[in-house]
């Protein structure tokens, strides 16, 4: 059996949605982590980093419970849409966003923190608001970190398995991603199909990372001129 392009397309959609959401959600969190001087900041940093060390099943389990009809969030969603979040594409996106959060926030925060504070101070003395300083100075100088964060969230979501299985199940066209598809094929002894799909995923992730690192190389060459 050949590659199932529907699961590929679904996986790409998921990864794209997660990357975009993480850009929107991760930027303020990363900004806060980079610039806040709150003494309990390390607690937030630890929470953000949790998905790096937790087994995906643990995270998936709690996300499933949180999305289910017994949780306030789940009930609110049901009252809004009439159906539960668990085992839907939206639920999958929520689980994946949490799972990939550190992959976006940590590179974002690291690149914000490496921006010379004097540049931020200079921007303020020239009358710029924090928002303008962020968009005109901090963000442009953090582009390599932003690209890395977005690409890592994308690639990480492409390859996730445990959280998807726990939160999304395995519904073709709705929640069946490439990694689940490969697992299914192996279970069904379709080794040729599993191999083709796995190889396609491997190449895709490799190309993505290659683009990121070549971009980094260019950026570091540029920065070293200064």
């Amino acid at each position, binding site marked *: 059996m050949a590659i199932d392009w529907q699961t590929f397309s679904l996986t790409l959609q998921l990864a794209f949605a997660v990357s975009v959401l993480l850009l929107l959600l991760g930027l303020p969190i990363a900004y806060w982590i980079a610039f806040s001087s709150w003494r309990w900041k390390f607690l937030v940093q630890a929470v953000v980093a949790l998905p790096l060390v937790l087994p995906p099943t643990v995270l998936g389990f709690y996300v499933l419970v949180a999305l289910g009809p017994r949780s306030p969030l789940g009930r609110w969603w049901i009252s809004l849409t009439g159906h539960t979040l668990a085992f839907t594409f939206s639920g999958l996106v929520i689980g994946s966003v949490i799972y990939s959060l550190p992959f976006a926030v940590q590179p974002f925060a690291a690149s914000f923190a490496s921006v010379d504070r004097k540049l931020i101070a200079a921007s303020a*003395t020239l009358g710029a608001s924090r928002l303008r300083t962020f968009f005109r100075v901090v963000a442009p100088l953090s582009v390599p970190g932003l690209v890395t964060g977005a690409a890592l969230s994308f690639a990480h979501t492409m390859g996730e398995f445990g959280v998807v299985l726990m939160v999304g199940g395995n519904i073709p066209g709705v929640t069946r991603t490439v990694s689940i598809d490969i697992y299914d094929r192996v279970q069904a002894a379709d080794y040729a199909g599993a191999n083709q799909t796995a190889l396609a995923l491997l190449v895709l992730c490799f190309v993505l990372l290659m683009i990121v690192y070549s971009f980094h190389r260019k950026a570091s060459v540029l920065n070293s001129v200064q």
Partner: protein
Amino acid sequence: MNAHPAIQNGVDAANPAAEARLGCRIQKRFAGQQEFAVDVSFEAATGFTILFGASGAGKTTLLDCVAGLTRPDGGRISIGGRVVFDSSSGVNLPVAERHVGYVFQSLALFPHMTAEQNVSYGLKHLPSNERRRRTTAMLQAFRIAHLGGRNVRDISGGERQRVALARTLVTDPQLLLLDEPLAALDAPTKSHIINDLQQWNRTQGIPILYVTHSREEVFALGESVIVLEAGRILRQGTPHEVMTAPLQETVAQLAGFENIFDAVVEALSPDRGTMTCRLSGDGGSTAIETPLVRGGVGTSFRIGIRAGDILLATVLPRALSARNIIPGRILSLDQRDVMISARVQCAVEMEVHLTLAARDSLQLETGREVWLVIKTHSCHLMQRAT
């Protein structure tokens, strides 16, 4: 948007002379391993006021407090009658609303922008044609119009300093803070930029706080000098008053003079910038040439000489530029690590530091007759502690 900020804040704008152009009272403590406190109070008029002091004296902290980058623990800061910080009434204007221009030592040019983009950065509130007009005028005034389209990474050090100044001045600040912005430049480039800056301020008439630790810059620029040490104002006045005044003895002792003696002024040579003092001690007295400071013949001073600034000779030196050659006898030689501390009896008892190799090659020993060689400018005059 462009109303005078003093009017915005409802302060007496009609009579800016009612208050000094910059009024500044700041207390700030930094806790930690090396506790450090800044506690200053001064006023600055239009034109250059030099903040002079060694690194760590609190100059940059002071500028950061005025700009709003660091929050003082207490005090009051007003610029042209406009209060930007007042701990008693809780006023603390954010940096962006203070209208204080600040050129950092590192310049902090935006590295991802061209020279022109850097200069127009602070003019966002203006319509684009007005912004372009002002940017162009400022680039021309600072002779960098031909660099407008270049990335600031690709221009020379002196050109970067000009871009940094232009970027700050184009926003019409009401106070300008310069934190050693010209320290890295060669003298001709520096004096060109300073001329352009003085030219600019002839029409603007704002106070400029200029941080430096170079004596030459103090005399070249200063109408007024504030000497900072360990977070406090040591002296304030014109460069001539301040820089030729004798140091306070406490300060000199902190600075590590091993030899401190009483001396009385015997003769002045103002044309040479020197004077002759008489040192008196147990072993009689000797004349010594020192730099000229304020005070007439008969004035009592203390003279501080570092042990490492004194040379020892075993024969009477001749044809030497040093003006003070004093005969004496070695009382003792003590080894401290890899250094020798010699006590030499002349009119007074002096401590001299030399290397082990110097002791051996000169075959120095207790009782040996020697000559002490001291340069005029190694003699530091201090006021007697009162």
